[in-house]
């Protein structure tokens, strides 16, 4: 272990008090298979601080009622809490208006909403939709479905060997037939941060709208949709310390106004007769049915939690964790990191000798270490790097240098078992 920096020294170098932070996350205090839990599967879903858990419990215990329809006190409280969460989301991503914040089930539903509604209106036969080789299946399959339906074509920005997008190819791929660009802000599989601001600027010079999949970005980066100038931005609450089952579609108001509804039902209408219905104003036009009220409130609580942290410090600490983990893992013989972009979030995908990632995952689990092993819902990207699967350690600001050391020891144990 003398190759690793003394962890006491490293942690005291940081102003960030990770041990205090860990106290906010009850789940982290447990043991797994007799070892302290080392949770390194944050890109799959992050853990939740007590304040988020309590916000949902509190809603169900004290304020549960449906929103926007009751005349009674509880309904009014529920509506205020739900709309209060929408305002928190607006501020969180600096959207101009609450009318541009649509609550959905998650990033996947948000992308499907845009593919279905915007796609219905704007995509014709022969048009092209441009995505990237870094996409998660959620930002591939909805566009494939749309293209099949409309006889349009899906084009793909290639990825370079280091895991960055090929921006020269991107420039060449945009043409008169390109009607939408849908790219991820951050790669879930290999951690690359894409230069989306620059990519959006290039797209807009050609008049092409851009959707950004921010699911992996919001837990790590400050997002400002006005400075990005993106047309759509989507993310899920559960990857940013909030609950599962709720997420956000941000879209510019003019786009949402023109787009037809995605689903029909209660909440999204203004008037209904059997001949025709008129639709509710934004954003309710896109929120058919009783929404995930407690989930939205939980998302609001997650935003409150993040707001009371010093996000500059968090980002600096996560960068230190990434650098430390990258260095420590690189020193293991037979380990190859997939994805070495200059700008990354603390997500490290790797392969080890000829040992299958699933075997790595099982053996690490028995040492209390939770990682993801598999294709990360990004099969085309795995194929690009010539692997069927990788092991992926994805870190959050509540992880420690000591946990990275545990991972390294765990991987050495895997190698011993297969020796």
């Amino acid at each position: 272990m003398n190759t690793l920096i003394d962890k006491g020294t490293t942690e005291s170098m940081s102003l960030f008090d990770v041990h205090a932070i860990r106290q906010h996350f009850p789940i982290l205090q447990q043991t797994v298979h007799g070892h302290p839990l080392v949770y390194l599967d944050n890109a799959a879903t992050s853990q939740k601080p007590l304040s988020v858990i309590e916000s949902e419990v509190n809603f169900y215990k004290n304020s549960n009622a449906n929103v926007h329809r009751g005349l009674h006190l509880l309904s009014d409280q529920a509506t205020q809490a739900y709309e209060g969460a929408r305002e928190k989301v607006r501020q969180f991503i600096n959207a101009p208006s609450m009318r541009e914040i649509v609550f959905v089930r998650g990033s996947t539903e948000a992308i499907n909403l845009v593919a279905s509604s915007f796609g219905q209106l704007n995509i014709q036969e022969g048009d092209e939709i441009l995505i990237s080789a870094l996409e998660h299946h959620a930002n591939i399959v909805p566009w494939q479905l749309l293209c099949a339906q409309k006889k349009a074509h899906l084009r793909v920005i290639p990825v370079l060997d280091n895991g960055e997008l090929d921006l020269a190819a991107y420039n060449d791929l945009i043409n008169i037939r390109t009607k939408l660009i849908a790219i991820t802000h951050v790669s879930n599989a290999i951690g690359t941060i894409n230069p989306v601001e620059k990519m959006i600027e290039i797209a807009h010079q050609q008049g092409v709208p851009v959707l950004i999949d921010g699911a992996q970005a919001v837990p790590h980066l400050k997002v400002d949709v006005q400075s990005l100038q993106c047309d759509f931005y989507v993310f899920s609450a559960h990857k940013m310390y909030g609950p599962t089952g709720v997420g956000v579609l941000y879209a510019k108001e003019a786009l949402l106004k023109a787009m037809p509804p995605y689903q029909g039902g209660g909440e999204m209408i203004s008037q209904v007769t059997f001949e025709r219905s008129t639709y509710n104003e934004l954003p309710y036009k896109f929120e058919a049915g009783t929404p995930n009220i407690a989930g939205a409130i939980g998302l609001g609580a997650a935003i409150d939690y993040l707001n009371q942290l010093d996000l500059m410090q968090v980002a600096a600490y996560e960068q230190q964790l990434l650098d430390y983990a990258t260095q420590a893992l690189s020193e293991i013989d037979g380990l190859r990191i997939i994805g070495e972009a200059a700008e990354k979030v603390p997500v490290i995908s790797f392969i080890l000798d000829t040992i299958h990632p699933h075997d790595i995952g099982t053996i690490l689990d028995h040492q209390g270490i939770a990682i993801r092993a598999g294709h990360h819902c990004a099969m085309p990207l795995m194929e690009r790097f010539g692997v069927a699967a990788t092991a992926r350690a994805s870190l959050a600001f509540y992880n420690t240098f000591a946990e990275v050391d545990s991972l390294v020891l765990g991987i050495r144990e895997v190698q011993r078992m297969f020796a």
Partner: protein
Amino acid sequence: MSALRELYQQVIIDHGRHPRNHGVLANPTHQKQGHNPLCGDKLELFVCVENDSIKELKFVGNGCAISMASASLMTEHLKDKKISEVLQIFQQFHELMTEDAHDVELLGKLSVLAGVAEFPARVKCATLAWHTLNAALAEDAAPVSTE
């Protein structure tokens, strides 16, 4: 022996790393692809059946140690077995993976995979080759998936 060591005992690591009967069979009577979409394990099985017995059995594929070892051990164990016997062995193997009470008298060396039962997430890895064989013998045309 710890559950983990029992799962990854030497026989399994050896068969995982150097699978027996790995290769393509020129003129199979039955042939089938199997796929575990969860982890990306893939294999293709080639079977030559003569007089209701398995005369030859080979596979190609890649995947985790458990899936490769299980396929390797299966091909070794089933050679020259009657089809009716194969179905009984599969039954016993499946019970070994999923049930507390099981008979093992037909399993022979396959019993080294007993440790998999302690790892529910890995049972699919160990049974992929078997489900693929089952489908091959049933001559079901669609590729088989563990999902």
